[in-house]
């Protein structure tokens, strides 16, 4: 049996039954990596040695009967989640050799839950992108079609799960960076409520939008991972002291009477017809399960992209100022004085998309422009948030396509940033509003590319997402389909 193909809960059952060891699982995962990684390129750094050691330790714990939520389970981490002693690059040359002296809170939590770390996954540089093509390292391929992108920015984490190169993974989502690649790779991805999961140790892109969340092969695994990573962290002032529920309890239950809002503004021209057809079918399925689907309105939807592309770059420009070559990371040897050192280090260290966003952000915050851009965008952001508050008075969850198209071809949108930005048109709003969003596989194109549906709920209502997704998943016909690699 290929253990790497199984889910967390399946493997945990087998571990508890004494059928398999963690070392068996880890070996199986690395066999798979050896077989497909040179085609998929999910990872920037592989942790073969330490993973086996961790697995051996996990097996000792298992023998003692000490089995926690993730004991012995191989997990991958997006390469902007800081890991003590393990290089954390953010997909950037400027951090190409950066080894953090500390563990992020989520890594600590995963360790405590017994997880084994497989490696650090590829991503768009500093999470800026929707295709993982802006990485300074590799281009990650979509396991369903190696000519296509896996989505982004957490493309490596999504591809690794889809290609069975790990059992589950963590990514981060600032404007759709978990949900969009999850949709494009046919896996489950959840962006939690802002403040639900600690950002301590997550290298910041846009601090008021960033959230860490899980990628998994099914909804149950998503709940298991959320149980581990959610919760208040005193090291993150923006993490909310609201107790996290046991998300597994949402895995049962039916959808009778559940109100699902379909925002009319999200069903626009330009959506790939195969995507809209598949979503229509999913809506029918949900109605068949007892859900009441009805149209809702989110009037400020049209402003999301504009607001996002002011707020996110503004924060990014400031967040990325620390990469100056002084204390860590790339320091250019060109240039004779301080200013030259700054200029060369940053010019050589950052890629084009990162530079573009730093420039946009710097401009938006400049004296004389602040009110027109940043301040105005913040005001509209409040209106977007209110849109959702109003909508959630009329429905429990909102359903939209995750992305307007399935995975596109490598290189297709690299020269057209605006087209690239539109790939996140349906996911940005959740980050702006701070609400949780989830992408669940709901079908495939004729060409065999996965399509995802997005579910959104009110603040701290991840349970509703998991419950809806879980009920849907049980009745959809697509579960278990794997890419042919």
């Amino acid at each position, binding site marked *: 049996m290929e253990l790497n193909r199984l889910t967390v809960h399946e493997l945990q059952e087998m571990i508890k039954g004494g059928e398999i060891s963690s070392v068996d699982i880890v070996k199986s995962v690395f066999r798979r990596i050896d077989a497909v990684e040179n085609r998929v390129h999910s990872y920037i750094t592989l942790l073969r040695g330490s993973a086996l050691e961790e697995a051996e330790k996990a097996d000792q714990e298992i023998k003692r009967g000490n089995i926690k939520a993730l004991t012995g389970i191989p997990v991958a981490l997006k390469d*902007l*989640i*800081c890991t003590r002693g393990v290089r*954390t690059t*953010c997909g950037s040359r400027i*951090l190409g050799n*950066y080894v*953090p*002296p*500390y563990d*992020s809170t989520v890594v600590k939590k995963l360790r405590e839950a017994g997880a084994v770390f497989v490696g650090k996954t590829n991503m768009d540089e500093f999470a800026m992108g929707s295709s993982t093509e802006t990485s300074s390292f590799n281009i990650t391929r979509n396991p369903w079609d190696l000519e296509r992108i896996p989505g982004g920015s957490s493309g490596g984490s999504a591809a690794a799960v889809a290609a069975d190169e790990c059992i589950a993974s963590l990514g981060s989502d600032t404007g759709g960076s978990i949900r969009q690649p999850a949709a494009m790779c046919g896996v489950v991805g959840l962006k939690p409520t802002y403040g639900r999961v600690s*950002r*301590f*140790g*997550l*290298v*910041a892109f*846009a*601090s*008021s939008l960033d959230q860490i969340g899980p990628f998994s092969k099914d909804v149950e695994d998503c709940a298991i991972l959320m149980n581990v990573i959610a919760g208040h962290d*005193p*090291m*993150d*002032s*923006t993490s909310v002291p609201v107790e996290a529920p046991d998300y597994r309890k949402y895995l049962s239950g039916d959808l009778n009477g559940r109100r699902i809002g379909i925002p009319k503004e999200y069903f626009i021209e330009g959506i790939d017809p195969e995507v809209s057809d598949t979503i229509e079918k999913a809506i029918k399925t949900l109605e068949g399960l007892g859900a009441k689907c009805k149209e809702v309105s989110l009037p400020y939807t049209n402003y999301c992209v504009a607001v996002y592309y002011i707020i996110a770059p*503004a*924060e990014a*420009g*400031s967040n*990325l*100022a*620390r*990469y*100056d070559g*002084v*204390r*860590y990371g790339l320091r250019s040897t060109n240039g004779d004085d*301080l200013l030259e050192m*700054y200029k060369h280090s940053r010019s050589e260290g950052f890629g084009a998309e990162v530079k573009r966003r730093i420039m946009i952000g*710097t401009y938006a*915050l*400049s*004296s004389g422009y*602040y009110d027109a851009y*940043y301040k105005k965008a913040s005001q509209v952001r409040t209106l977007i948030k209110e849109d959702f508050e109003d909508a959630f008075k009329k429905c429990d969850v909102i359903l939209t396509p995750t992305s307007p198209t399935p995975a596109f071809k490598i290189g297709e949108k690299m020269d057209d940033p605006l087209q690239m930005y539109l790939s996140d048109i349906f996911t940005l709003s959740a980050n702006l509003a701070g609400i949780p969003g989830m992408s669940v596989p709901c079908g495939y194109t004729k060409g065999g590319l996965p399509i995802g549906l997005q579910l959104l709920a009110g603040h701290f209502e991840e349970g509703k997402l998991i419950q809806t997704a879980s009920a849907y998943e049980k009745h959809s016909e697509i579960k278990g389909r794997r890419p042919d690699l």
Partner: protein
Amino acid sequence: MKYEAVIGLEVHAQLLTETKIFCGCSTRFGAAPNSHTCPICLGMPGVLPVMNRKVVEYTIKMALATRCRINGKNSFARKNYFYPDLPKGYQISQYACPLAENGQVEIEADGVKKRIGITRIHMEEDAGKLVHDEYSPVSYVDLNRAGVPLIEIVSEPDIRSSEEAAAYLRRLHEILVYLEICDGNMEEGSFRCDANISLRSRGEEEFGIRAELKNMNSFRNVQRALEHEIKRQQYVLEGGGQVAQETRLWDDSKGVTRSMRGKEEAHDYRYFPDPDLVPIIIGDEWTEEVRKTLPELPLEKRERFVREYAIPEYDAGVLTVSRDLADYYEEAVRLCGKPKIASNWVMGDILRYLNEEKRDIKACPVRPIALAEMINLIEDGTISGKIAKEVFEEMWSSERPPREIIEEKGLLQITDVDILKKVINEVLEADPEKVKQYRSGKEKLFGHFMGQVMKATRGKANPKLVNKILIKMLADRE
């Protein structure tokens, strides 16, 4: 002078918290470079700030002491600029919502009392330090200071002279130290000052173009720099020129200010709300709780001293320069009940000895109880004031109580009339010529006889008694 100076000061005071403003590192000065650092204050990727509540509490104290309005909702902003001593590439500060606004302090300069308005007080983090190698073109970064909490106190442009500026700074310094929220050490940089200064014609309402002065690390330098800058700007204006809006550095060795950067090179700090920190809500309850911990402030103490001890304002001013000195004085008064005499001793010998030895009042070898005892011994005639000086010197060096010293050295005052008569007799006998001169009207010689008697008794004779007996004996002499 045709012109009037308009001065506003920005004071940065390091707060005396144990730990830094956003992490748990120590704030102690003088440690090995970069030994008081962690991923947070080093600005490592992925770290987040967590606000130190003590910083808020201390800032509330300063706000209350300067009669500011305290804002209920406090938020933090990022001030963005690049410099190697600034690990994150931005300083976390307060911009739109400072903790305190609209306060004032009272100053006195050239005998005139005046109120100086305080525009705002806000919290922020300090930057690190660059250490430049003297022998090679290399600079090092020491980030021990990065993240040490600061408050910035911005005054209104109410100050009109360098004397007023110095008086204002001394007042702020005094309050901060009284509140025990800042050690006030200017050399170590715990109390720093920048000045904005412009000139305008007297009677003019509008402000002139201002220059910002930096790099003045003592009260004296602030005063000197302002005096120099007033003259410089006056010269420019009188020559028909225009003062440039710029930042100027004080050069202590040359005694001049020189241009550092002009308006065009001024930074655009791109302030925006720091998304990593949530607003701090300061309710009335918190403010009141802090108010309860406020000590008596220098001005209040001064007024009370004048009222309660009936000492001159000048004395009260000197005695309340620090809380410890005032406490010392009050303890001595409590034990001897002689406020003015105690004041004379504290302001005189005690402060002089302390200054000579560069010691703090806390380390004064003569404790209030000893001083009070000595004062009592003078008052009850056990020793003379003159002997007291000698006793005091011994008390200082040996740290022993005065009675012990007096007994050991036989310094008790001679009040025995018979003994005194005998001594006086001997003095008069020794110089009949002078006695004759005195009697024929040269009354000035009385002092001479007094001196001779004191000399003969090695200062121990009770001067009042000697005076009385001497007058009588001179009159009786035929």
